């Protein structure tokens, strides 16, 4: 499998959860990769844990969070 295909599979898992209304509740990185915990408030769901192995997927999930922070900051300043 190409590196991109491995990343794409992990990205789809992340995006699927986000699409279902899940948010990131925790990220713990160790020698095996990043364990990302997702939970959903309404309707209550999870926790769901993904073990992200590829660098691009680990980057993707935090890029979503950085984007979320920027969006929140922009809303505060409105």
């Amino acid at each position, binding site marked *: 499998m*190409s590196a991109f295909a491995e990343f794409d599979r992990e990205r789809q898992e992340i995006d699927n959860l986000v699409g279902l209304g899940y948010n*990131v509740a925790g*990220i713990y990185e160790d020698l095996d990769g990043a364990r990302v915990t*997702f939970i959903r408030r309404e309707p209550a769901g999870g926790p769901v844990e993904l073990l992200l192995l590829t660098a691009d997927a680990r*980057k993707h*999930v935090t890029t979503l*969070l950085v984007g*979320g922070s920027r969006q929140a900051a922009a809303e505060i300043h409105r």
Partner: protein
Amino acid sequence: MADLSIDFAGIKSPNPFWLASAPPTNTGYQVQRAFEAGWGGAVWKTLGEPVINTSARFAAVHFGGQRVAGFNNIELITDRPLEVNLKEIYETKRRFPDHTIIASLMVEPKREKWHEIVKRVEAIGVDGLELNFGCPHGMAERGMGAASGQQPDLVQAQTAWVKEVATTPVIVKLTPNITDITVVARHAVKGGADAISLINTINSLAGVDIHSWNTIPNVGGQGAHGGYCGPAVKPIALSMVAECARDREVGVPISGIGGISTWQDVVEFMLMGSTGIQVCTAVMHHGFRIVEEMIDGLNHYLDEKGLASVTELIGKSVPRYSNWGDLDLNYQVVARINEENCINCNKCHIACEDASHQCIDMLTNAEGKAILQVREEDCVGCNLCSIVCPADGAIDMIALEGGAAPMSWNQRSRIISGVNGSYSEAEVG
């Protein structure tokens, strides 16, 4: 024609091209010929208690057909009495009053020794002093040169002793043979340095003769470590100049030294924060007249850029030199191979297969011609293929547009800490 003159910590010079303290500035005869050729200044070969030098002294590293890619020496400071040097400095300054003469000095780390030499040298009329805390061989074994320069407190103390009596600007020359050169630079400034110069030579052994088993160079079958310089050290020097230039606690003018051979090198060092530069190895390889090409090249470059003065270059690239942790992880470049320029040597394919991410495929196009093609989705943009490619224009590194918003490693670390530190989930999207 742009103005090439500089003001280096109060020292006026007709251009930024100075000869470094080294064999080309050993005598008045040499320095005067250098000034006639066009050099704006010279740092006189280090003055101190005269030494006795060895034979042989120099060695070079030739690489891939390039002679003198690196240069190694075990020569020490001047082997002539102080008064002989001072007489020649006086004569040279009299003939070339508008050119810059800096006296490089090295004595034992004792206050009275520094006071004595500073007073005697300044009495003859020099434009500034450069304290040699960098020479890595010979003198260091006697507590001078790099042995002093590797102890920040000793650099500070000796600089302060010099400043107690000096009436001209004091430049402290730094050794690269240390973990963090900015520590020593900051201590030089604390001691009162008006400027710093870097880098001195790097500890080295040029080679071993595989037939005789002698070191290169050797003195009757025995060798010792020397100082390495020349084009091979330029990236190391440039990095150290940049680190000092962006350190706010340093904050004094920098004279850039290390492998400078062309006008382009000069531009790079000035963009990275040098107010002026010093050259040695290129002159030892090609002679004083290389300065003519350097002056012409710099003049044309400044005209093309529409700059009226060479000083407009100083430090312009420093804000672009950052920490790895602040680089944008979402910036993405990919390799693209231009079939019309590719000579199908396969070096990019081999490099990518063996040393990178296996994303260059060997294919056959519709006309049956062998082609190389990058799978862009798998390309990490490492640049290796374009580095090894021998054909101009065959591989371009293209920045992808419309990617994710910028995110650095440091930003990422902060956001992960924030998520893990809060009890509620973080919003995404």
